[in-house]
């Protein structure tokens, strides 16, 4: 009911803005300015209130290989942002604010920018729902510095289900997390070790935390969904991290003629399309060998990719990845050695 009322309130406001636009357009057209301007206003769809501090950027909506992106700006206390000196054309308006998501529209609006004119756009953002909880270890102690993600199952056109990552946050020193700005629906909550880009090769551990789905499942199929409703917080999504033995995967990357693929990028991943998790992302040694530590039991794919940079006569350079055929491996009860992968062929 409150939401319905809010919409009714917004409509007259939107009408005002429309008039505002026409005024802008007519006055701007009489000026000598040749570039265009876009003024946007971001409102809370539930309350009609302006939202300050929303990050906004414009991306060219024209069908080009590399869309032009304008640097990010933010809305002021009145929810207003302004881009000036814009080349005319189609632009997609991207806005982002913690705790909000695109409402019924579901995606960034596209606006047509006409030379010498001012365009106004009003964007309504919906305050999503949230999930809070705590992650503990087997002794009941909090686990900090984990990444917790809310996955939303989405049906693809071919009928298969994939999981969309809607929010990811780090647990604090009390093991607490809060995932906000979630569209209403069913979610799976998963906690994983953070994988920052360490420069040093990690040391082997005997056991390690492994990906754990609420309420303590190893995979998404055994997980319990968490219901999120609009503007509400689903609390006490507390669970215990699973621990498992950690093993090594050793092998060599070669080229088509069997020579060592020195410096090839080695990737170890698992999961199906849509939910692929990369466990290791490193480089083969000069003799083509690689050593991956801390791999828990499971089925994985190992792949060796090669980056080729081509420099043209004019000094410009292009680069392309050549992906090797993935090799499936099973880690169970011990280290896996002698893995041989063929690197991508330029």
């Amino acid at each position, binding site marked *: 009911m409150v939401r319905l009322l809010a919409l009714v309130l917004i409509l007259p406001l939107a009408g005002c803005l429309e*008039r505002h636009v026409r005024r802008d357009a007519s006055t701007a057209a009489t000026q000598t300015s040749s570039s265009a301007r876009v003024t946007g206003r971001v409102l809370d769809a539930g309350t009609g209130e302006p939202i300050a501090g929303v990050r906004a950027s414009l991306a060219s909506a024209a069908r080009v290989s590399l869309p032009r992106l304008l640097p990010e700006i933010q809305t002021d206390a009145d929810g207003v942002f302004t881009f000036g000196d814009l080349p005319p054309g189609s632009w997609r308006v991207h806005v982002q604010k913690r705790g909000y998501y695109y409402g019924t529209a579901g995606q960034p609006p596209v606006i047509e920018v006409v030379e010498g004119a001012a365009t106004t756009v009003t964007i309504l953002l919906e305050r999503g729902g949230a999930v809070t909880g705590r992650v503990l270890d087997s002794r009941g102690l909090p686990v*900090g510095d984990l990444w917790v993600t809310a996955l939303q199952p989405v049906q693809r056109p071919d009928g298969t289900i994939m999981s969309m990552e809607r929010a990811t946050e780090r647990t604090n020193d009390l093991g607490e997390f809060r995932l906000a700005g979630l569209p209403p629906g069913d979610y799976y909550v998963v906690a994983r070790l953070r994988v920052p880009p360490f420069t040093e090769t990690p040391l082997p*551990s005997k056991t390690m935390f492994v990906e754990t789905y609420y309420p303590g499942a190893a995979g998404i199929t055994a997980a319990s969904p968490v219901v999120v409703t609009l503007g509400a917080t689903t609390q006490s999504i507390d669970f215990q991290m699973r621990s498992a033995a950690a093993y090594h995967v050793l092998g060599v990357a070669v080229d088509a003629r069997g020579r060592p693929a020195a410096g090839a990028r080695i990737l170890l991943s698992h999961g199906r399309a849509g939910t692929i998790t990369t466990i290791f992302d490193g480089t083969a040694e000069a003799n083509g060998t690689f050593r991956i530590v801390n791999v828990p039991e499971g089925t994985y794919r190992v792949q060796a990719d090669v980056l080729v940079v081509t420099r043209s006569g004019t000094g410009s350079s292009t680069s392309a990845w050549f992906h090797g055929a993935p090799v499936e491996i099973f880690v169970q009860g011990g280290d896996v050695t002698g893995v041989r992968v063929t690197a991508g062929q330029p």
Partner: protein
Amino acid sequence: MARWVRLAIILVLAAQHPALAQSSTGGFVGVVVDIMTGEPVAGALVSLIARPAGVPPPPRSAQTNTEGLFVFVGVPEGRWRVQVQKSGFFVVGANGQAPEVEIRAASVVEGVIQVDRGGAIAGRMVDAKGSPVSEVFVTAVPRIPSGDRAAGPLPSTGNAQTNDLGEFRLSGLPPGEYYLVGRPRPLPTATGAVAIPVVVVQSYYPGVADQARAAPLVVTRGVTTSAPDWRMLAIIRPSRAGDAVAASPQRAPAPQRATGPRRRVSGVVLDPDGRLAPGARVELVPVDRQTVPGAPLVTTARPDGTFLIGNVPAGTYLVDAMLASRLEASRVHRVVVENADVTGLTIAIVR
């Protein structure tokens, strides 16, 4: 004991590493230990950061394994600062400074890094209306006792970002006194031809512009100190000298008012006790009938309690004022700006 055996093995491994054969690099291995329990700390992020002198090599980083062990190989010779990050912990005995390690060519340095559980500060940041302010970067700055400044400024400790409810939590703070400072994302509100002065908005707890007026918070080991209802402030950075109070930093000027003469609106702000109110926020909100209420022109009352808003286009405005640190605001006055400056306004803030 087992840990030390393990460390010895790693030392051997590190010594055999081909990168160590290079003459100009060395190694660093060690263990991160909780000083109170003696247990290894797993999952700590250990970084080596070069000192500012000279050309800084890129930082190196490693993560401790389940036995608290880490290893760096092929580290360029020289003095490096060691940084250890683990939620809830701080490095002991470093006197607020990061410990350092001297890396020598073709040799391996071993170290034990002791960490301890610190205290925490948790709170919530709100705006003038009491609404939560998200995406603000919060840091704790140690308070240096007067007379102890020879030690130099202490680095700020811990940082966090406010969530969608304006909440934040800083943990692993060494016991002591801290000031909290909140800085929003430094993004402009407009680009290109409509560029306007960048607004620098920062606030010291509990909602003041400078450290001298900030309230320090006491942090003790294992305890969470509360910092409720911290007020965010808007501070205007003047783009030119003399333009300090004439800016409209919150928004680009409305296009339909882009032409025509500009006037000045000035006066004085009084607090609820009838005293001059320096630092009060004064807003001039355009309310011309044909448009929606426009973005306010904002300024802050000067140290003598007077205010001046320049560059005001003709039109009808609502004027109000509020105190920066509290929720008190004035009654709203209606002002019509025509062909002359408006002077002598008295805006009284009431409780």
